[in-house]
């Protein structure tokens, strides 16, 4: 147990990066994901198909490959980018496709009469989508978005492979240095992730119940 107390400030400081990646990831993925969902639902073929291909291909590749690929690609082009920024970009590229599917389900759950009525009042497709359908869809998506956030918290631990000093990276290196207490240190990591993710998913379930009217 001493290993935990001695390294506690060092390990917990990594949560800054964990939450940073998750927050940046969810924020930008929300906009990119919404755009992808609208494109995918668009009746215009040359907007629809590229979105479908992007979503399906990205979803069939593991996140860790994007983390490596984007990091080495940007470094290879000669730009100096922090591993944190590059991991955040990878998370946005990856998570936006999952959010796109959440948003798409949200939009499809809105009665088609809403769109028809909005169009009938003379709004264009884009304006009807933006002013009538999306505001209603977003409210229904909140629980799913919160649970996506817990997924991003868990997946952000993958950023350790390019050396982002996030929480699990710090526990991992501490464990490699101490060597004698793997269960205490890794159990501590498990406990911290569990507390964060469980409370978030509990909150998401409450939101779902409250919205279920």
């Amino acid at each position: 147990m001493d290993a935990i107390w001695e390294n506690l400030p060092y390990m917990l400081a990594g949560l800054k990066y964990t939450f940073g990646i998750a927050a940046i990831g969810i924020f930008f993925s929300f906009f990119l994901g919404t755009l992808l969902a609208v494109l995918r639902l668009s009746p215009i073929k040359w907007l629809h198909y590229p979105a479908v291909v992007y979503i399906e291909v990205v979803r069939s590749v593991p996140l860790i490959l994007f983390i490596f690929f984007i990091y080495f690609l940007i470094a290879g082009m000669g730009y100096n980018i922090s591993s944190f920024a590059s991991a955040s970009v990878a998370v946005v590229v990856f998570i936006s496709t999952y959010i796109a599917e959440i948003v798409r389900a949200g939009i499809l759950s809105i009665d088609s009469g809403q769109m028809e009525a909005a169009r009938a009042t003379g709004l264009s497709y884009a304006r009807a989508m933006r002013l009538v359908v999306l505001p209603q869809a977003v409210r229904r998506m909140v629980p799913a978005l919160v649970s996506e956030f817990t997924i991003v918290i868990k997946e952000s631990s993958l950023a350790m492979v390019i050396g982002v000093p996030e929480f699990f990276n710090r526990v991992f290196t501490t464990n490699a240095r101490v060597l004698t207490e793997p269960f205490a240190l890794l159990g501590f990591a498990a406990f911290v992730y569990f507390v964060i993710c469980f409370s978030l998913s509990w909150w998401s379930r409450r939101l779902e119940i409250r919205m279920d009217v």
Partner: protein
Amino acid sequence: MEGLDWNVILGPEGRHMLASGLAITLQLSVYGIVFSTLAGLLIAMGRVSTAPALAPLRWFLAGVTEVCRNIPLLVHLAVWNFGVFGFAAVHAFTEPLTAFYSTQFLASICALVTYRCSYVAEVFRSGLQSIPKGQIEAAMATGLSYRATMRRVVLPQVFRIVIPPLGNQYVGVTKNTSVVLVIGVPDLVFQAYQIESVTFQVFLAFGAVMAIFSLVCLAESALLNVLASHLDRRWGGAAMAKGARPAATVTA
């Protein structure tokens, strides 16, 4: 950035590295899928049991699945590799297997299973709960035992219902195998990393592995879709009205 040198992935050395990585990735996927299906099914059957005496088992299973689900895969992997497989007693136990597979490989399978089985259990549980109680009562009334009812009446229907969501979980297992390079298992991602660090061909090294992963995952879900429609044709009934079931898609 230098020009593309296709030789790094198509030359004999590159091909050999990618093929050996693919072999590891596929083996991990298959073992992970088989064992997490078995574990998930057992957990689900425990959780839907109704006997009052089994209540502690149900609480235990509910707790374990909740804990396993809320912990990142990397933590599972590290606990198995540095924790459980660090014991001498465990080594004695895995001795016959380590002749064929490294300890890290075995730890990876364990981690894939403990991470994924809770999701698979949820899939089976919702499948089991979707079978109307009346069917179980009717089967028992005809004189079948509880086990015969499960095996002959309930489970065959459950398998048909759960195939699409189960397919998503299987694709998830395949994608999850990509993290094992953290403990040094030479899977596809590891090989891409190796090729890149020697040749600096980022596009080709990672692009090739992305394409392979994409193909494997899409093939997996296509296979599950074929299986689902085959079972529907064979046994299709009222519960399985055409179009009532979403097609399997690729997910996390």
